[in-house]
């Protein structure tokens, strides 16, 4: 990065994929080819995308560092900036400040079995780590993914599911209610989790999704015998600077933008409330 | 609303040259005055060109905020026009508006804003000629008043966009 951490690098949207009714995936490249070549990051690190004139917002880089043709971000339409992003087209310019945040401890996860539990847009941060592990498949044991969405229409990355399965991933899909033509599981993610009941032995669980899902999944994992430090999740907060200065994204003394967004469950417990 | 930097208050008799950039915003109710302006256009009545029209569903939608923001940020005049009282499409919208607009009109000068820059009036959809009269008179009045000096610069220190890039 340059010496002004507030100054975004210019980037161009190469491709936009419509994932669901309110989620779009952007594939962008930095305009500076050299920088794009040298750009490195850890899975789970985030970027601040600028739409100049509207503002900045934080998204996880959900393509893995092992695949560098573009940087991928999935954006759910919610507020001012995300609505603006949804109006952009391929070829449009945005600003990018990345990589920011801590990312997943993928090295410490080596040799372990992995359980991913994702809900809705929460699959985005998991995808980067999942693809990284597929690209380094020998380093990891069993990889099980439980991915749930409200309906099949609300599921992201459906076009990749075959690739994931081919990469040696036990992919379990579920939707909240019966849907015509749906052949996979039906039921809420926490319920499916207790049905699948993965063994906590030598396993790390990585969880991301809406707060209510996280709450019950954490409960379910504890039931299954997972220790707090075996459970990893990512936090979200309103952010501005993204570099641990502006003060708003704190949970206790930790800044989600700088010390996170990835935390283990025991770390989160130590932070106190206000999540 | 673009440039709001303070313009020197103009002398009383304005020449055509220094009132060229005059901007007037008109908030017109959809059912009557917008139709009235349309009628005036269809009848090819000659109208001043410095009015920018914002169509609102009813003068009952008129928030004094719209007028205040326009005048504070340097619009030279604000005209609000709706259905004649008792003719409101929604029965009572303009009755509410009337009280609000009158209060605003009396309030503006207290803050140092020339109340002549704001006018509210009633014009029905068939009154093309009336519309022509209203808008011509208001425009002439604003041209007489000259550019709106505004309430002051946007920021003492940092906000001049004009000295930006290049």
């Amino acid at each position, binding site marked *: 990065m340059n*010496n*002004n*951490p*507030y*100054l*975004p690098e*210019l980037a161009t949207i190469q491709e936009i994929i419509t994932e669901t009714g309110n989620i779009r995936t952007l594939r962008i490249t930095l305009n500076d080819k050299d920088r794009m070549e040298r750009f490195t990051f850890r899975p789970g690190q985030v970027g601040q995308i*600028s739409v*100049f*004139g*509207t*503002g*900045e*917002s934080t998204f996880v880089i959900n393509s893995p560092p092992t695949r560098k043709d573009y940087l991928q971000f999935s954006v759910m339409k*919610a*507020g*001012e*900036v*995300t609505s603006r992003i949804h109006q952009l087209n391929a*070829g*449009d*310019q945005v*600003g990018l400040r990345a990589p920011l945040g801590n990312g997943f401890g993928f090295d410490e996860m080596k040799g372990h079995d992995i359980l991913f539990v994702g809900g809705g847009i929460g699959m985005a941060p998991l995808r980067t780590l999942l693809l990284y592990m597929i690209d380094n498949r020998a380093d990891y044991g069993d990889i099980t993914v439980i991915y749930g969405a409200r309906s099949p229409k609300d599921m992201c990355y459906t076009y990749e599911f075959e690739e994931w399965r081919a990469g040696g991933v036990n992919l379990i899909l579920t939707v909240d209610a019966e849907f015509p033509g749906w052949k996979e599981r039906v039921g809420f993610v926490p319920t499916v989790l207790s049905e699948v009941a993965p063994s906590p032995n030598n396993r790390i669980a990585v969880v991301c999704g809406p*707060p209510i899902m996280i709450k019950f999944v954490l409960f379910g994992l504890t039931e299954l015998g997972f220790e707090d430090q075996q459970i990893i999740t990512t936090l*979200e*907060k*309103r952010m*501005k*600077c993204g*570099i*641990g*200065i*502006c*003060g*708003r994204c*704190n*949970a*206790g*003394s930790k800044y989600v933008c*700088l010390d996170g967004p990835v935390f283990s469950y025991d770390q989160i417990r130590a932070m*106190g*409330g*206000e*999540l | 609303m*673009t440039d709001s930097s303070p313009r020197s208050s103009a002398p009383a008799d304005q020449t055509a040259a220094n009132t060229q950039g005059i901007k007037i915003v008109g908030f017109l109710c959809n059912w009557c005055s917008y139709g009235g302006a349309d009628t005036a256009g269809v009848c090819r009545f000659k109208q001043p060109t410095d009015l920018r029209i914002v169509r609102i569903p009813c003068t009952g939608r008129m928030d004094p905020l719209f007028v205040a923001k326009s005048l504070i940020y340097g619009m030279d005049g604000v005209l609000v026009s709706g259905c004649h009282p008792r003719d409101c499409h929604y029965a009572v919208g303009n009755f509410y508006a009337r009280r609000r607009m009158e209060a605003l009109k009396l309030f503006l000068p207290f803050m140092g804003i020339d109340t002549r820059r704001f006018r509210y009036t009633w014009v029905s959809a068939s009154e093309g000629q009336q519309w022509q009269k209203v808008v011509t008179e208001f425009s002439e009045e604003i041209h007489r008043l000259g550019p709106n000096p505004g309430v002051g610069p946007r*920021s003492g*220190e*940092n*906000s001049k*966009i004009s000295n*930006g*890039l290049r």
Partner: protein
Amino acid sequence: MAVKIFIATDRLDSVLEKLSTKIDLWIPALLKDDKSGPTGFVPYEPGKAVAFDRQTTMSLKKVLLPQVETLLRFEYRKEPEGAINSTLAVEDRREARPTLVFGARPCDVRALTTLDRVFSNGPYVDPYYTERRKNTLFATLVCRQTDAKCFCSSVGGGPADMEGSHLRIVRTDDGYIVEALTKEAQSLLDNLGDAPDASREKQAAEIVEEVSRRRVGDLDTEGSAEAFRKRFEQTDYWVQMVSQCLSCGVCTYVCPTCYCFSITDEAENLKGERLRSWDSCMFYHYTLEASGHNPRPTKLERYRNRVGHKFSYIPERYEGLLGCCGCGRCIRSCPVSIDIRQVVGHLKENTNE
């Protein structure tokens, strides 16, 4: 090079005028034509009334962290050849000019240690603050106007504390003795006045000596961080302490160590700016997420966060540093007379109750 000069009271303005030709000069001044009205730091103008007789209403943080400043300018340019895509240019031009704040107070200067840690000492360095900071000198008054709301000695400072200051100002019976404390400050005093005579110098030394001995405030902050963590979940405590809070931004805006800010874009047509502006953790919108979720939805969580930030989070993050300089402004300006000393002081009482 002058090390120490005497300025007679009636010559102060002419000396400041001379000084302002050497360097950008900020002084504490009346903001309203009322001798007991609000005061703050303003760029020097000849004839402007200096307000040396009391602590300013607004702190000097705006010299280094303006209430609003431009971080970036951007402009979309249409390609001349009719291409649909416009090009985008972004720049972060900034300028920090040599500046002197004449008439700071020890508490205000001490507050900068918190800001320095946050803005300049990583992991990321804020170039806007840091460049201004490097270019700014402080001439600090030995403070003899402490009142019942001051508590600088409780948080590591003191009314004669010159840490971080470049010049010391001592107000004597008939004027001011200004002494350069660092090399870089000495040249500023050249040709501004004569060295003080022996009797004045003696008086100044006595004043410094006397003020140095003063202990201002009796808040004991030892162990506040742990006590805060224990109190964190005790809603009753916070209900009792801050029910009267109005959730306005006064305490944070007058506070010299409150630095939290917002970043917003403002554009007109194809051009615009990215602005940084003061924000306040007392505001609902501060933490409101796009989803509608707000982790600090009421004033209780918000006030708790302010106390926690100053007395627990900052110390925990930054090697024991406190986020409070004891200036007492938040107490003085609070519309409902909330006293942060009580809130912090009671943290440790009967925690197990």
